[in-house]
């Protein structure tokens, strides 16, 4: 780990160094900045390597907050403000101005140091992830909107025959529905995260439930000439689950399996019981997923990272599997995926029997 510490007090720097050396981070590289003059040069030389920055509130030349603001703009690493004792007001201001955390110098010991570093790094990662996600969300929402707008401009400035018009309206409608669907799913995931949609648990036959869900895909399977087979080790398995939420999960997996099946393909569903779990699998023989991309599959906007595409150009929001995982977790279960690139994918859900 590379730690940058900005402090003009030689004694304090020495103390800081000794704390790092006595901690589990003793192997870290410590870069020390003690003057405004050396600051820029050190930053431009080492900026990209720095993992965390400790900044003394009383630096010469500029106020601690000016330093904070400069460092914040460079967006190199999380910044921890080193404050005097009992200076809670400065500490609060520092957090407001973008510091990841603060550490009163009097409390500095190897244990506090490591704890502070871990917290700051965690917050930094979360912030980075949130910003990236916002960027992707904006991009994913903008794409269909640009198509809608493009057609609106076109309709405004040109005359079209009836058949072209009909096609334009269909595309506008389809894109708008896609957008609405994506926004609804995003709201859904937020609600699940906030816990505002509690599960409504019933005791139902899981096999019968699966049969019913499969039935809803009649038109889609016919259109793509895909066959769905259901295999099970018992005719009925009673299980506690929220049928509405579980419908979302199972439907999503079947919908994906159809999208990623080649025309004439077969999808195999299996429901089996083990001592503790009911195991539900969905197997398709579509294009599969590259091993290096499997890690993104259950994350939001997986479609941005996963290169496999539906076989007939069907659209996906990249949100569905993230919702599936959250719902399965709410049920105390697990979801996983296995895939051989070029041969197909298997999604496995394990739900606890009790």
């Amino acid at each position, binding site marked *: 780990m590379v730690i940058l510490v900005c402090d003009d007090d030689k004694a304090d720097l020495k103390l800081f160094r000794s704390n790092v050396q006595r901690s589990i981070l003793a192997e870290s590289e410590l870069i020390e900045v003690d003057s405004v003059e050396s600051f820029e040069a050190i930053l431009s030389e080492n900026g990209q390597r720095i993992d965390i920055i400790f900044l003394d509130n009383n630096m010469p030349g500029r106020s601690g907050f000016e330093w904070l603001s400069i460092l914040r703009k460079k967006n190199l690493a999380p910044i921890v403000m080193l404050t005097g004792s009992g200076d809670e007001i400065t500490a609060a201001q520092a957090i407001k101005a973008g510091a990841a955390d603060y550490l009163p110098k009097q409390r500095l010991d190897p244990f506090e140091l490591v704890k502070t570093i871990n917290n700051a790094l965690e917050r930094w990662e979360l912030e980075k992830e949130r910003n990236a996600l916002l960027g992707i969300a904006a*991009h994913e929402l903008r794409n269909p909107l640009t*198509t809608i707008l*493009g*057609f609106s401009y*076109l309709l405004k*400035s040109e005359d079209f025959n009836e058949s072209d018009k009909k096609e334009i309206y269909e*595309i506008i409608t389809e*894109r708008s529905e896609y957008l609405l669907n994506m926004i609804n799913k995003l709201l859904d995931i937020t609600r699940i995260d906030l816990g505002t949609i509690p599960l409504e648990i019933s005791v139902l036959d899981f096999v019968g439930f699966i049969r019913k869900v499969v039935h809803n895909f009649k038109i889609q399977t016919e259109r793509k000439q895909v066959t769905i087979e259901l295999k099970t080790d018992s005719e009925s398995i009673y299980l506690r689950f929220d049928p509405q939420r579980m419908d979302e999960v199972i439907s999503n997996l079947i919908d994906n399996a159809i999208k990623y099946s080649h025309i004439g393909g077969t999808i195999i569903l299996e429901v089996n019981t083990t001592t503790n779990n009911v195991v539900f699998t969905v197997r398709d023989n579509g294009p599969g997923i590259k091993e290096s991309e499997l890690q993104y599959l259950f994350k939001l906007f997986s479609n941005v990272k996963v290169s496999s*595409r539906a076989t007939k*150009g069907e659209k996906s929001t990249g949100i569905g599997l993230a919702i599936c995982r959250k719902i399965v977790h709410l049920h105390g279960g697990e979801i996983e995926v296995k895939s051989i690139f070029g041969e197909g994918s298997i999604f496995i859900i394990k739900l606890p029997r009790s």
Partner: protein
Amino acid sequence: MTNIKEKVNILLIEDDPGDQKLIRLALTKSNSETNLKIIGDGEIAYDFLNKLPESIDLNLIILDLNIPRISGYELLDLISRKGIKTPVMILSTSTKESNSNRDVIKVAKAFYTKPLSLDGFHAIFNEIFSASGIVNSRSK
């Protein structure tokens, strides 16, 4: 304004059926007769460009940077390496790309951001074709 009735051959690399339709319609409203070939997959586009004979009469490539399987940048790179002289018009939703990637996009003659407005489209169209000798403009 002049209109030369000459067939303009255009290659559109775009996977979104809606956007394909949008461009096709926009082109029918231009005054030139256009031949539009559409490729919706990065790898197929790569193969196509890679095997493109020098003698082919291709007047414009319209490229969506965000296509499946191979990125639009790789295609631009190929166009540059192969020395394909056809102007490339880039479709992208991101205004950021148009600013930050100007250096990357050395071969592209024009940069365009969606949404496609007809006037903007024709302005770029005219610019490309007046440079390449084909006049394609329309009077309003």
